[in-house]
């Protein structure tokens, strides 16, 4: 039993949450708060930065140093915070649209640079806030307000993108598997370097209803049934893994971290930060 009191991290005056009934975002926010509680970070030394979208409303509800920035630009703002104050713990909250469409370049370059941020990417496979348009992760064949007859595009594999671009820690979890997700986030928080935790989050309102899932519970059932632990996935074929969500820690490597390398360069040149 977890006795951590996450209410110390909440701005309760802002409640109830703006998110729809059954939205996974609140569950993922709690998984983050529990992870921050376990690693023992002081909320005054922790910064939460978000972009634009449903997921990016999160910092409004969290009592830390918070920044709600512009569309796709959470990572650049967070990079600035971290470079100016390398001792702060910086968490980036973003969504599939925010981080892999308009903010796609920032996302891959943060991974390449390997700057010490923890990016929690809430992937609901749709643009929820603006009415359910196709996002870069909408699965092929699924309906959206801009794909009435089904999406014809292939979706991004966000974790694969982060791995290929050089992030030192990549994990994928789901709002259904909230306990495990919180553990992946904890590992990401502690990692020196760019951590990406892709958190699958059901959107019952604009995705589920359009795709014949009548209740939030139906969407969580589907998440549960689609989830395959990474060890089991290694024994499965590509065809078997189609429509599956591989969960677990996908990458965990140590490599030079940007703010540390930058400090070394300053020291080498005889300056002070």
């Amino acid at each position: 039993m977890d006795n951590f009191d996450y209410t110390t991290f909440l701005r309760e005056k802002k409640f109830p949450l703006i998110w729809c009934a059954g939205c996974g975002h609140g569950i993922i926010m709690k998984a983050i708060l529990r992870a921050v509680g376990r690693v023992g970070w002081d909320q005054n030394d922790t910064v939460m930065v978000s972009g634009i979208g449903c997921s990016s409303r999160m910092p409004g509800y969290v009592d830390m140093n918070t920044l709600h920035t512009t569309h796709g630009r959470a990572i650049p703002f967070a990079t600035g915070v971290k470079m100016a104050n390398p001792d702060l713990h910086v968490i980036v909250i973003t969504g599939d649209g925010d981080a892999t469409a308009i903010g796609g370049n920032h996302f891959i370059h943060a991974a390449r640079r390997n700057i010490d941020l923890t990016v929690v990417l809430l992937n609901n496979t749709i643009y929820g806030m603006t009415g359910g348009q196709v996002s870069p992760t909408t699965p092929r064949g699924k309906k959206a307000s801009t794909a009435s007859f089904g999406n014809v595009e292939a979706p991004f594999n966000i974790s694969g993108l982060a791995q290929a671009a050089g992030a030192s820690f990549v994990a994928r979890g789901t709002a259904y598997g909230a306990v495990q997700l919180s553990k992946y986030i904890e590992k990401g928080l502690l990692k020196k370097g760019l951590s990406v935790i892709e958190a699958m989050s059901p959107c019952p309102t604009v995705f589920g209803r359009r795709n014949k899932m009548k209740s939030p519970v139906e969407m969580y059932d589907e998440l549960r049934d689609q989830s395959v632990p990474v060890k089991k996935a290694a024994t499965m074929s590509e065809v078997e893994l189609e429509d599956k969500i591989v969960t677990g820690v996908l990458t965990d490597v140590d490599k030079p971290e940007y703010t540390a390398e930058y400090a070394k360069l300053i020291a080498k040149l005889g300056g002070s930060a």
Partner: protein
Amino acid sequence: MSKTKDNEAPPVIEINAEWCKGCSICIEYCPQDVLALENGIAVVVNLDDCNRCQLCDYRCPDYAITVK
């Protein structure tokens, strides 16, 4: 049969009706069937079987349920 050990105080489940949106996730995934939906809000109907696993709390998107 009660899941509470003899030397243990019974669990306390608090539900914030102002924040609950009736999504039913806590009810559906409670392994002990402790909760039910009443007038669109989650309510405790079977406290004796609660084993304090806190899965309702972990999965409540609206911070509306706690188990102590």
